[in-house]
């Protein structure tokens, strides 16, 4: 292992806030690659004795026998623990502080979610186990589906898509299948110039051409322009609402009307659903099909890039096209023979068996008044038996193997249960409050290109700082020195030099004030000492990395040095 002991040079750079000084003398800052720490004969595993006869593996496999083992590292358990623990300390995370990455909704990931996702009967369930032995998991699917339908105001749902972009793919497949059933698949999808890159990429995968829509002066959809662009070849508009500017399309119903008048559908990218839950439902304002991101709105962890989950909800007329299989509930007493034989005895009577009685309690305010104007959804099984329905002749087909990212469903449902109707609404209100608080505290120093009211995120531009040569990417890097994860840089594309800030509901006022102070301080630095900002970060283990070299001569794997 080669170790660079001269680790303090980054500190020698001038100008870091004095609180950022760190002593870096321990090898934790120089953890090598696993392969470089490997030594023959070290091991971190022990298999139990083989209780069946050994086999002559090489003659049994013949030509298919692997002669040379893969060059995997050989390490002990403590080295592996230290390796990954050390690597982890090089990461920023929500658990460490504010992570205002716009569009990504980096909210708190509750730990009970992790706990319940690992409960043995859930984590160990094989996807092909007989449905009679999977009723518990299917009840979780069912309750989550009902909650998400209620939250979105839609009629039908699939949990199958593995992430947001996969949900878009599924939603546009439904759109296309429906148009085909009407006799014409149509040729184009409209995408606003403020959209996420996944939207046009998705439209292309489903065989559509992409037509851009220019945003109006408020950053919203220009209705007259839209009316001109929508024609008999338009399959759908893919709209993010609130938009990537954090702006609610207040004429959304007119947008839906323009589309529907020409037989086109309104697809909603639900990336920004954290601004809407409990306040307004897409199904009520004209959306035909949409996806949700459970890893954004519903608190499942982002995990360094995934896994996500992208359920797709739609209106009734699109239901026949949902991916197979679809979850259905047979009423109590119905005959089934999908598994091995007759399962009538596995039917649950419509009672609350297995569920603590507390779940059946009515929703009451502290003063005893019932909350809401409808009965709260029961948590106990509705009775009958859940099963997968495969016989769906109009289905677009499967979009992945098995049924979806079940582990994420468990976490998302745990989040919904922890919040309840009041908590979900308060969450949305706090998210919007936080974004507006940041806007108010920074709008005198940072250019606000669109003055339209903000929902859950606020987008500034670097116009004033750019006059001193300081760009949004520089301000972002300087934020790191102040102990924050940067906001989203240079997106949406319609704002030149965008700073896209989404604080989420998870930030206290103290944390927001620290962030505001940091941003104000950087604005000052941009004027007084632009070099300091342009060369940031100054406090990290590595300084700015050479991305050009990485792309020009890609090194995508470790190789042993030639001896």
């Amino acid at each position, binding site marked *: 292992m080669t170790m660079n002991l001269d680790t303090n040079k980054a500190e020698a750079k001038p100008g870091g806030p004095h609180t950022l000084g760190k002593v870096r003398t321990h090898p934790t800052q120089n953890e090598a690659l696993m392969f470089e720490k490997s030594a023959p004969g070290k091991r971190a*595993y022990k298999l139990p004795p083989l209780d069946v*006869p050994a086999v002559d593996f090489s003659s*049994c496999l013949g030509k298919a*026998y692997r002669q040379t083992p*893969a060059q995997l590292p050989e390490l002990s358990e403590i080295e592996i623990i230290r390796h990954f623990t050390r*690597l*982890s300390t090089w990461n*920023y995370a929500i*658990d460490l502080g504010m992570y205002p990455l716009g569009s990504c909704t980096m909210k708190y990931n509750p730990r009970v979610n*992790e706990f319940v996702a*690992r409960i043995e*009967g859930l*984590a*160990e*369930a*094989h*996807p092909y*186990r007989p449905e009679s*032995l999977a*009723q*518990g*998991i299917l*009840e979780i699917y069912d309750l989550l589906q009902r909650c998400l339908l209620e939250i979105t105001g839609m009629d039908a749902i699939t949990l199958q898509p593995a*992430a947001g972009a996969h949900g878009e793919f599924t939603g546009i*497949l439904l759109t296309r299948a429906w148009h085909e059933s009407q006799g014409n698949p149509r040729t184009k999808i409209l995408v606003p110039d403020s959209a996420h*890159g996944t939207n046009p*990429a998705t439209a292309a995968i*489903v*065989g559509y051409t*992409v037509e851009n829509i220019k945003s109006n002066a408020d950053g919203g959809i220009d209705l007259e322009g839209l009316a001109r662009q929508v024609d008999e070849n338009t399959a759908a508009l893919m709209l993010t609402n609130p938009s990537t500017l954090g702006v*609610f399309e207040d004429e959304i119903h007119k947008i839906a009307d323009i589309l529907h008048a020409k037989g086109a559908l309104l697809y909603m990218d639900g990336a920004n659903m954290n601004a809407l839950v409990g306040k*307004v439902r897409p199904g*009520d304002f004209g959306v035909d099909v949409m996806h949700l991101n459970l890893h954004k709105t519903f*608190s499942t962890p982002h995990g360094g890039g995934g896994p996500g989950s992208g359920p797709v909800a739609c209106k009734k007329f699109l239901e026949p096209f949902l991916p197979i299989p679809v979850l259905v509930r047979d009423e109590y007493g119905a005959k089934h023979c999908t598994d091995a034989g007759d399962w009538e005895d596995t039917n649950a009577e419509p009672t609350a068996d*297995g*569920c*603590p009685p*507390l779940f059946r309690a009515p929703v009451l305010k502290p003063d005893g008044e019932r909350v*809401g104007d409808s009965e*709260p959804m*029961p*948590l106990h099984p509705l009775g009958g038996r859940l099963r997968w329905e495969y016989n769906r002749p109009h289905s677009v*087909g499967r*979009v992945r*193997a098995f*049924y979806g990212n079940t*582990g*994420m469903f468990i976490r998302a449902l745990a989040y919904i249960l922890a919040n*309840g109707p009041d908590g979900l609404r308060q*969450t949305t209100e706090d998210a919007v409050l936080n974004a507006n608080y940041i806007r*108010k505290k920074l709008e005198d120093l940072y250019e606000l290109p669109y003055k339209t009211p903000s929902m859950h995120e606020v987008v500034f531009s670097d116009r004033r700082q750019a006059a001193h040569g300081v760009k949004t990417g520089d301000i972002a890097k300087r934020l790191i020195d102040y102990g924050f994860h940067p906001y989203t*840089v240079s997106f949406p594309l319609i704002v030149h030099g965008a700073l896209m800030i989404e604080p989420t509901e*998870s930030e206290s*006022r103290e*944390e927001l004030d620290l962030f505001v102070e940091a941003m104000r301080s950087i604005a000052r630095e941009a004027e007084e000492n632009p070099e300091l900002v342009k060369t940031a970060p100054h406090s990290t*283990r590595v*300084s700015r990395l*050479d991305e050009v070299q990485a792309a020009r001569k890609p090194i*995508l794997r*470790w190789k042993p040095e030639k001896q």
Partner: protein
Amino acid sequence: MRYLPKSDDERRQMLAEIGARSIDDLFAIIPAEYRLGRDLNVPRQQAESEIIAYFRAAGQKNATDYASFLGAGAYRHYRPVIIDSLVQRGEFLTSYTPYQAEITQGTLQAIFEFQTMIAELTGMDVANASMYDGSTGAAEAVLMAMRVTGRQKAVVAATVHPEYREVLHTYLRYREMPTALVGYHNETGRVDLEALAAAVSSETAAILVQSPNFFGVIEDIPAIAEIAHAKGALLIVSIAEAVSLGIVRPPVEADIVSMEAQSFGVALSYGGPFCGVIAAREQFVRQMPGRLAGQTVDGAGNRGFVLTLATREQHIRREKATSNICTNQALVALMATIFLAVYGKEGMRELAEHNLAKADYAAKTLSALSGTKLRFKGAPRFHEFVLQTDEAPAAWSRRLLDNKIVGGIELSRWYPELRNCTLWCATEVMPRETIDAAAKVLAAAPVEA
């Protein structure tokens, strides 16, 4: 609400500083007729203890005390404890895509290690940071081959996981990319090489096979590669059981490998989240979908890692991207990385040997019974086998369930011609007693009058 770090007083103060009279002011832009004037009809707020009780009850309804011979693309292996200790560190769990490289070196170095180990295992030059799962990975690999070759047709073996083939069908549905399905040899369970050669033409972009295939049989990869390459087509090998690579020769003749890495320390979790990954020859890297971590240096010459070759991706290239994938399976890939570190070079072989030995014993034991027969004996297998029974599977599987054993899965669901055939799997965690017990129950067919 326990996740929200504000008092009502603080909310009021903040509203006042914004200049709003109430929170409703901030939602005023939403037309009144669309505002939800009521509580959502979802269950009331639950205490943490209630949430745990609810999911425990659900888990218990799933009958946890059953032994299982199920495989077919989702495999139960032992998961070393340190996997969950490490991936639950908040610094991994609660960070996101490492676009800001200076403060995500932990994730980036781990991805680089993952890419290296996958390349080593599969015999490919490079691997990406992950795909959703083995099924979407296989579909994306076919699309990648189409871009590489500029050709529009694919040939697919019937021995590829049926659900993978269904997903491929969905992905190609609107792409005018016809696929030809090639059957299998009745004695070996391998793809029919003659039919394969006949199906491949100079218009074929790729052949997609799986090895070990859906029947647990190892395909003759060198022979298939020859057929593909003779016509200028690429060979894509899908691997649904990654542990097989500990003992099975890697598909080095392939051009693209699409692997499901669930077996590397990932819980079954009723089918997801799993971890797909695409590996390939170096010359195709610019047509690969998904994220890639690459090595570089910082201003002071220190080694560091960044996401690279992003011009393939949707956030740069939009509708011209290689794929629309954005979020991937990063944390699950980290699980796989830790798993591979635990087993290492020697352990992967030993683990694979245990799997093969268990399945070999199970196959011999179950096929020795009267009224049962092992199918596809003419080719090597890994840890799955096809058993044909005189008695209908519905009958004996009920007897097994009465004894708390889930037997093999019926193949007629996907292969109508394989009547009374079931696919069994035995991994290293399958005790010999369970295999013997299953044999005993299977043998106890009621005597026909």
